[in-house]
């Protein structure tokens, strides 16, 4: 990886460039450390989640995906294709984010997936609670097919909100430091 000055990249109109952020966000974006941490954290999580599902797409993703009850079962190729393709999208987007290649596009994909699946997780948990009325919402443990196995719903939602904020930061950040420059 090479380190480039943010100001230089901005004048080139490269990805992530444009007008620098102002105020607190501008200061946060200045040295590129916050963006680097966000890239490593978000990319790392999605590399892990993608890899777990690729290793066992049926048990780790197809079956949990079906329990969401938000996708049509007929024709079957819709659900099956999503179970096969989405983990690879996660993995590749995660790798690109860590490397800093096509960062904004990768963050956009991850933001979109989180924005779609987080309400689905809530819907899933509410459905589970309706079927098991004695269990308080904050005590629900479920396997949402996210790649992290069975997890407490509150922890999962907090994690997703954190990941959404990281993806949002990578979308708005102008920093061009600590990236693989030749691919920009």
């Amino acid at each position, binding site marked *: 990886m090479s380190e480039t000055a943010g100001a230089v990249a901005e004048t080139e109109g490269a*990805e992530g460039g444009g007008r620098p952020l102002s105020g607190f966000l501008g200061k946060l974006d200045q040295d590129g450390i916050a963006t680097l941490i966000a890239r490593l954290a978000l990319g790392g999580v999605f590399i892990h989640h993608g890899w777990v599902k690729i290793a066992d*797409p049926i048990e780790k993703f197809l079956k949990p995906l079906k329990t969401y009850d938000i996708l049509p079962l007929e024709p*079957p190729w819709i659900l099956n294709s999503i179970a096969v393709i989405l983990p690879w999208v996660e993995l*590749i987007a995660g790798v690109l984010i860590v490397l800093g290649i096509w960062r904004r*596009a990768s963050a956009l*994909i991850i933001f979109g997936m989180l924005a779609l699946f987080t309400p689905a997780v809530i819907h899933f948990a509410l459905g589970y609670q309706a079927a098991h009325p004695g269990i308080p919402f904050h005590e629900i443990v479920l396997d949402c097919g996210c790649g992290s196995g069975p997890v407490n719903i509150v922890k999962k939602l907090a994690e997703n909100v954190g990941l959404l904020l990281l993806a949002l930061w990578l979308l708005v950040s102008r920093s061009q430091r600590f990236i693989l420059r030749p691919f920009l």
Partner: protein
Amino acid sequence: MPGCSRLFSPCTLLQAGGIIAIATAIALASNGMREKQVDLDNQYFKASVLADAARESAAAEKPPATTPIVAPPANGGTAPAVPAPPDTTPSAEPVKPVAEPVPAEEPPADGIQRMSLEDCRDLIGSPVAVFVDARERDFYLAGHIPGAVHLYHYDSAKHIEEVRPILEAAFMVVVYCNGGDCEDSINLALDLVTSYGLPNENVHVFEGGMEVWKAAGLPVVTGESRE
């Protein structure tokens, strides 16, 4: 890359499309090459499809709710209703309390017969019955019902011929999985009937699965051995 400085620029969207296209190509290629692949055209969840269809059919056949016609009170609706005095006239026969009609248990929409734990327990060692474990191989190896053969539901097309002679020789084929919310046993049972040609009357599902079996303290066999 020039032009990617704005959030939703065509460049960013093009790159996002490129990532998805590359991921799709790699995903489909790798899925085609792997041992444990997802058959894209296979319906793995037949039981749910049939249950959904049955629900929709029942909803379509249900008559629309009608408002009960209530005769207006004789006094024009102003006086409070007075309960009728109890009928004290002696009758020839004592009035028997009428029991609430018990609704008959509806057969499952999938048409597969269910078996209880007691029924399954009696089948251990039976020469005419065979258990089929629809779970992943690791679960089978960790512990299965004595005499059970392994046929993972999501991989059944590849391995059905290995167990077909055993299944066809049995008069009762009892499929099970983990129990609880697990539907793999029903889905595999449906495959055995609709895709692999076993007679419907021979195929049963033990819905309690291994959870109920183990909880009852019944014997379990580990490893590849069936006995």
